Each structure stands twice: as structure tokens, then as C-alpha cells.
């Protein structure tokens, strides 16, 4: 929305300052209008403010007085336009204060910048959450400067805005009036490329689980490791971080914006350098996992956007919590509805999960005998609902390995596997160019038809599999997406019989 910029004048009764409101990652420019009129002294904020915004009145009044300005003993009305949606948070303080100062003529120039900071009672600027998404909106709306707290300056600068980090309201006024001009913050350091803690080379044996990891990393397919305790399921799952393809800049911005809303940004290096890897504990509530609260905050699924979400001990998660994963797994986004507000956060992630094969953990373990009754094992697996299991593309057994194997190094380092993953990822994103999606797990049904060509022999196998295993149509499409990824990893345009067979086997439906 373009911001109306009034011609500069020394004093006028209605002042306008640019701000931005945020609901989830959705944002809209807000014009803060301030009017000072004759009447009984009062200070009102209208335009659907929430509690935090209404409280801004007290902070603004004190900050103005304590910065050496005068708060007018007149009737002050502040409107947050458009007035139809509820505004949340403390990010409007600075804009309201500047509006009041401008309307009373204590500031004689318009700010011409997005004002985004909370005010302390002494006039100090405090950082707010979600700066990245809002600055991005402002840049798109043609407001190229941003006035923020020093802690938020790097975040704002990372998106190409002229970001000014001011220590106090006084500094902002000095800058606007042109008395003490401050230089914009430099573009922050590029994100650091971390060394991954786990490399495939460190993991002995486990060729099939590693293969599944490669397929999951390349195509974004969800993966479940099942095996006795201590066989390396967690280590394998953590190794996926070393295989994920590089972040493309647009994806990195969206993922960083989610972290910014959650207040999890490194102030020095605001842009995420590597795809996120999130590993919530199995006691996590559904609020922690998919997000929520008031105002709605992003959950782990959104913090994992663009990267991987690792759920260790999957069967120990509360079943109702796991069920909330279905929406993000299917839609790639989470919508949180609260009275008056709805927030949507992106949540496209590669799910990696691990669990024991039975309650005692030793089913199929050569080292120790399983002591579970067959029905108890069934009940254990039944903790995972059918619809969730249906959305898990790869289920792989992680066996206990022999000592001789343990002494060997893994065959391939992550670097080599990652090269294959990147090449395959490029093949798939080339097919999906312009759709906003980039991997095979996100292929729509129509795209599956278009891109998943089966070789003649594979076609026969597919028909047999459909009949023999009573695969649902959805299950079949999921198998085809995985087969497409396996073919992409082998740089094959056609899905060959072996690709399809491997996809069917890795799906492992008992």
C-alpha cells in the first residue's frame, strides 16, 4: 500500500507516520495518524489496538516528557489506519510518539521512514520481534528507510533497507530535524556457514538408512527410523543437516523472518546461513510444535521451514500433539485462529523421526531379547495414527551393527552425498520453476502425472503393486514422488523399475 506523503510544512494538526502491522508472517502497512485539538486533555488510540498497543499511551507520554519534549495538555487522538484489523504488539510506540511530536510542531519534518520500535519510559528505543517481515513489506511498499532500535538494525539492513538504529527518541528527532544526521547501518555480515556436527563419514555401516536419508534430503520426503536404542538413529537423523541443499536467498529470507517473529535472530548475522534443523523434545505441547498463543507465535514446524524437523522418540509424543502435524505436512503452512486474529506461518519442512521398534526397544535386536507381547507391540505402533503414518514416505529399520563394522569408517563423506542431493534438487526445482515450490515431495497430483514417467517395465510393477498391496491412490502418488527423487538422484529422466522398487520398499508398509 503506498504511503501518502504530505508536503513538508512546519506545523499542522494531523501528522502521519509509517508503521507496519504483523499477523503471523502476513503484514500490512499502517499509517499512524495523530491529531491534536483543543478540548479537555486526553490521549486516545483508536483503530483496533490490542492491549499492548493501548498501553503505548503511557509509554509514549513518559518517553516524550523524559526526552525533553512537552506532551500537549490538549485532546490527542491517534488513529492506526486502516482501522479494520486488530493491531498487536509494542512496535507502534515510536511511530505514535513521532506523530504526536509532529502534530504539536515539536518536530518540523516528516520522518519518511518505517518506524518500528518500543519506547522505554526514559525515551530509549527497545527492539521488537518480526522486524524482518515488516521491513520487507515496507520496502515493497516503497518506504526504503527504517527507524529501529540498535538491536534490530542489522535485521532491517539485511533486507536492503536503509536501516537506522537509534538509541533514543531524542536521537530520532535530531536525525529527522537534520541536526545530527546518523549514517545507515552497514549491510550485515553474510551468514556464517557452520560446520555440521555430524558427518556421514562418522557413521559406520547403515547403508540403507543413509540412502533413505539422501532421498529424504533431496526430495523433502518424510522419514522414520525404527530401531533398538543405541543403534545410531539420532546420529543418522542429525546427519541430514549436512546433506540439505543450499538455501536459496528468497527461502532464506522467509525462514529468517519466521525466526525474527519468534525473536530468535542473531543480531550480528540476521540471515540464516544454513537450513534450520529443529529437534523439539517429545514432551512438547501442540502450542510449541505448531505454534499458538496470543498473539500467535510460530511453533517448531514453522521454525523448521525450509529445513528439517527431527522428532526423536516419536511414539512418546502425545498422540493429540502428533495429529496436529497433519495440517503442516499436507499444506506446508499453519493457520492459527484466535478471537479477532488469524496468523498464517509457513511450515514446509522435511520430517525426520525416530522410534523404538517396541516398548522395550529390543525387537529384532541380536544383542538383547525383546520381552514384549505381540499385542503390546501392536499397541505401541498404534500410538501413531494411520493418517500420520500415511504421510511418512520412508520407513527404515536401523539395525544394531557388528563390532567389525563399527571399526570401519562410513563409505562416503557427507560432502559427496550432498553433491548428489544438490544436483537432484536442481533437476526438481527446474521442473517446478515459478510455482514457489522446489522439491518432489511438494509435487501436486497433476504434476505427478506430468513428471513421473514410468519406464515400460516399471509400469507393470506399479500395476502389480497397486493390486497386490492395496495401495491407496494417495499412497501410490507418494510412492511415485519418492521414485521420482530416486531417479533424480541417478540423473534419470524416466523412473526405472529399480527406482520404483526401492521407493516401494523404503515405504515399508506392514
Amino acid at each position, binding site marked *: 500500500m503506498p504511503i501518502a506523503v504530505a508536503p513538508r510544512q512546519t506545523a499542522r494538526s494531523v501528522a502521519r507516520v509509517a508503521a507496519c502491522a504483523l499477523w503471523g508472517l502476513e503484514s500490512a502497512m499502517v499509517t499512524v495518524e495523530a491529531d491534536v485539538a483543543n478540548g479537555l486533555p486526553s490521549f486516545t488510540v483508536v483503530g483496533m489496538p490490542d492491549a499492548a498497543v493501548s498501553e503505548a499511551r503511557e509509554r509514549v507520554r513518559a518517553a516524550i516528557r523524559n526526552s525533553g519534549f512537552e506532551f500537549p495538555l490538549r485532546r490527542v487522538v491517534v488513529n492506526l489506519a486502516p482501522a479494520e484489523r486488530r493491531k498487536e504488539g509494542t512496535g507502534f510506540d515510536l511511530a505514535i510518539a513521532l506523530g504526536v511530536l509532529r502534530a504539536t510542531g515539536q518536530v518540523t519534518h516528516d520522518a519518511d521512514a518505517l518506524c518500528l520500535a518500543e519506547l522505554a519510559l526514559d525515551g530509549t528505543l527497545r527492539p521488537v520481534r518480526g522486524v524482518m517481515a515488516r521491513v520487507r513489506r515496507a520496502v515493497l511498499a516503497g518506504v526504503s528507510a527504517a527507524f529501529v532500535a540498535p538491536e534490530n538494525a542489522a535485521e532491517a539492513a539485511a533486507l536492503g533497507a536503509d536501516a537506522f538504529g537509534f538509541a533514543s527518541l531524542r536521537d530520532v528527532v535530531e536525525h529527522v530535524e537534520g541536526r545530527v544526521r546518523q549514517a545507515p547501518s552497514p549491510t550485515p555480515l553474510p551468514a556464517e556457514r557452520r560446520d555440521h556436527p555430524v558427518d556421514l563419514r562418522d557413521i559406520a*555401516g*547403515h*547403508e*540403507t*538408512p543413509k*540412502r533413505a536419508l539422501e532421498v529424504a534430503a533431496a526430495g523433502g520426503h518424510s522419514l522414520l527410523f*525404527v*530401531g533398538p536404542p543405541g543403534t545410531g538413529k539420532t546420529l543418522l537423523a542429525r546427519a541430514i543437516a549436512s546433506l540439505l541443499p543450499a538455501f536459496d536467498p528468497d527461502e532464506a529470507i522467509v525462514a529468517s523472518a519466521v525466526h525474527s517473529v519468534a525473536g530468535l535472530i542473531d543480531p550480528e548475522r540476521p540471515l540464516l546461513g544454513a537450513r534450520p534443523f529443529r529437534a523439539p523434545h517429545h514432551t512438547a505441547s501442540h502450542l510449541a510444535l505448531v505454534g499458538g498463543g496470543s498473539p500467535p507465535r510460530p511453533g517448531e514446524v514453522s521454525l523448521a521451514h525450509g529445513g528439517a524437523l527431527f522428532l526423536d522418540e516419536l511414539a512418546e509424543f502425545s498422540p493429540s500433539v502428533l495429529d496436529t502435524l497433519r495440517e503442516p505436512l499436507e499444506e506446508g503452512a499453519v493457520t492459527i485462529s484466535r478471537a479477532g486474529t488469524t496468523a498464517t506461518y509457513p511450515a514446509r519442512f522435511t520430517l525426520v523421526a525416530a522410534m523404538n*521398534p*517396541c516398548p522395550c526397544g529390543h*525387537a*529384532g535386536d541380536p544383542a538383547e*531379547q*525383546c*520381552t*514384549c*507381547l*505381540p*499385542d503390546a*507391540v*501392536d*499397541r505401541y*505402533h498404534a500410538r501413531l495414527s494411520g493418517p500420520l503414518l500415511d504421510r511418512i514416505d520412508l*520407513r*527404515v*529399520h*536401523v*539395525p544394531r551393527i557388528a563390532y567389525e563394522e563399527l571399526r570401519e569408517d562410513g563409505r562416503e563423506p557427507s560432502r559427496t552425498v550432498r553433491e548428489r542431493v544438490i544436483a537432484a534438487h536442481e533437476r526438481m526445482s527446474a521442473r517446478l520453476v515459478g510455482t514457489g515450490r522446489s522439491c518432489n515431495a511438494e509435487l501436486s497430483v497433476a504434476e505427478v502425472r506430468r513428471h513421473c514417467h514410468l519406464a515400460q517395465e516399471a509400469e507393470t*510393477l506399479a500395476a*502389480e*503393486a497397486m493390486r*497386490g*498391496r492395496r495401495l491407496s491412490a494417495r499412497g501410490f502418488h507418494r510412492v511415485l514422488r519418492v521414485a521420482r527423487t530416486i531417479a533424480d538422484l541417478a540423473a534419470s529422466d524416466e523412473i526405472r*523399475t*529399480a*527406482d520404483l*522398487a*526401492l521407493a*516401494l*520398499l523404503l515405504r*515399508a*508398509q*506392514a
Partner: protein
Amino acid sequence: MIAVTPADAGYPPRLRDLAHPPDPLWIEGDETALRARSVAIVGTRRMTGYGERVAREIASSCAAADVVVISGFAQGIDSAAHRGALDGGGRTVAVLGEGIALFLRSVRGRRRPLVPRVRASGALVSEYAPAFCAQPWAFAKRNTTIAALAEAVVVIEAGERSGALITAGEARRLGRPLFAVPGPLGSAASVGTNALLAAGEARALVSAAALLEVIGLQGIHAATSPTDPILEALAGGDLDADAMRRRVRVTEAELAERLMRLTLAGRVTQTPDGRYRSRS
């Protein structure tokens, strides 16, 4: 449901061998199954994949020879034996350690879908009143009834103190031929059966045909001799894909394709934890 006493003509004749025959015996289903040629197949509830496969194979061979498979309808080996007999198109009798009506009401899990099939093709029997609640000693008593009801007894897998060993002991007392399936050394599920073999109390069961010969029947088909190297590898128990590749030594693609074909042919299934299991 009917109840028969030792005085009745319809009372299963072999039960009269017991010092204290069940009186009365409650029967739900086809009581002629209790007088037919029969073999008892029993074992531990905590079976391994190997035990499950052997139980099903032997039961299915018995079914093919029109021999009724008798077992205790517990989880594990017992259920696998009933299932093997039913899948082989044969009849099976379940001897319960609790009242029949109570069992029908309370059974859950994998055994539940098996109940109507057992009732339709064979019978559920119990020496306890229909609403009798399960007691530990009742199961021990039931185990001796199983031994008496059958012409021969096979113990597939039994732990050190398994209830199946009670059936084995009673079989010896009654002079019923007793077989035990040799298991891998070190497997807790085979400690009991291997001990029976070591003490010379049971014969080693090496094929269904040998078992049927002992009760005077010709085995219909010899023990299956797997020719496929994958099936051969799986005969020793469930395997994960990596272990299979070490045994069979083929490329990943070839293994995937062959496993898939065996799965589609119904020869191999996958366990919920992603390993492969041979299915007879």
C-alpha cells in the same frame, strides 16, 4: 454352546486318558473337530520371527493333511498356529484357560479377528464355566488338556519357564509323541525347547512330514526348500536390508526389485519396524 461330560458319547475320547478329565467340557463350534486326527502346536507368547514362521508352516502343513491343529489361543506361537491352520484351509481347536463367553467379550488385538474364523472352521473349548474369569492356575490346567486332546504335541519355542513346558510334560506322561523345534543357541525363546531336546525328552522336529508320519499319515508335501537366496537368508529370521545385502550380495537396485517381486507374490512381508520376514 454345548457342555459334554465324560459320560456322554460325544465326549472327546482322548481326554479320558487324563487322571481328572474336564467335567463338563464346554464347546462352542463344531464338536466333531475334537474327534478328528489332531496335533497340538504350542509355544511362548514372546515368539521371535523364526518361531512365528515355523509355527505357521507346520500348522499349514497339518491343515493340508486334514489334521486339526489344537492350541491355546494365547498371543504368540498359539495364535500363529491357529492362523497357519486357517490360512492352510484346515480346522483348528482353541482350548481356553477361561470361560468362553468371557473370552469372546474380552479378547482384543491381533486375536480378535481370528475368533470368528476359529469358530466357523473348528471350535473353542473350555473346561471352565462360560463366565469364568482367568486365573493363573487355570491356564496351567488347560495346558494339560491340550496335551490330552491331541495325538502328538509340538513345542515351537518356549522360554525357560514357559507354560508350553507343562503341555510337554503332560504329553510325556500320557505317552503322546513329543516334538520340539531346535532354536538358535542364545535365543531366550528357545531355551526351553533346546533343553527338552538336550535331555532327550522330545524329538527334534525337522519337517512337518516327519510329524505326520508319527501319527500314521503321509505328509502331503515335503518341507519347503527355498531356492531363492533371499528366502534362504530369511529362513533364519527377520533381516533388515543391509544384513540381507551382506548375505545375498547383490546391488541395491537388484535387491529392491527382487524383494518387491517376492513381496507382491506374498512370499515376503515387512514388519512394522521395516525389516523383512519370510511368509510361507
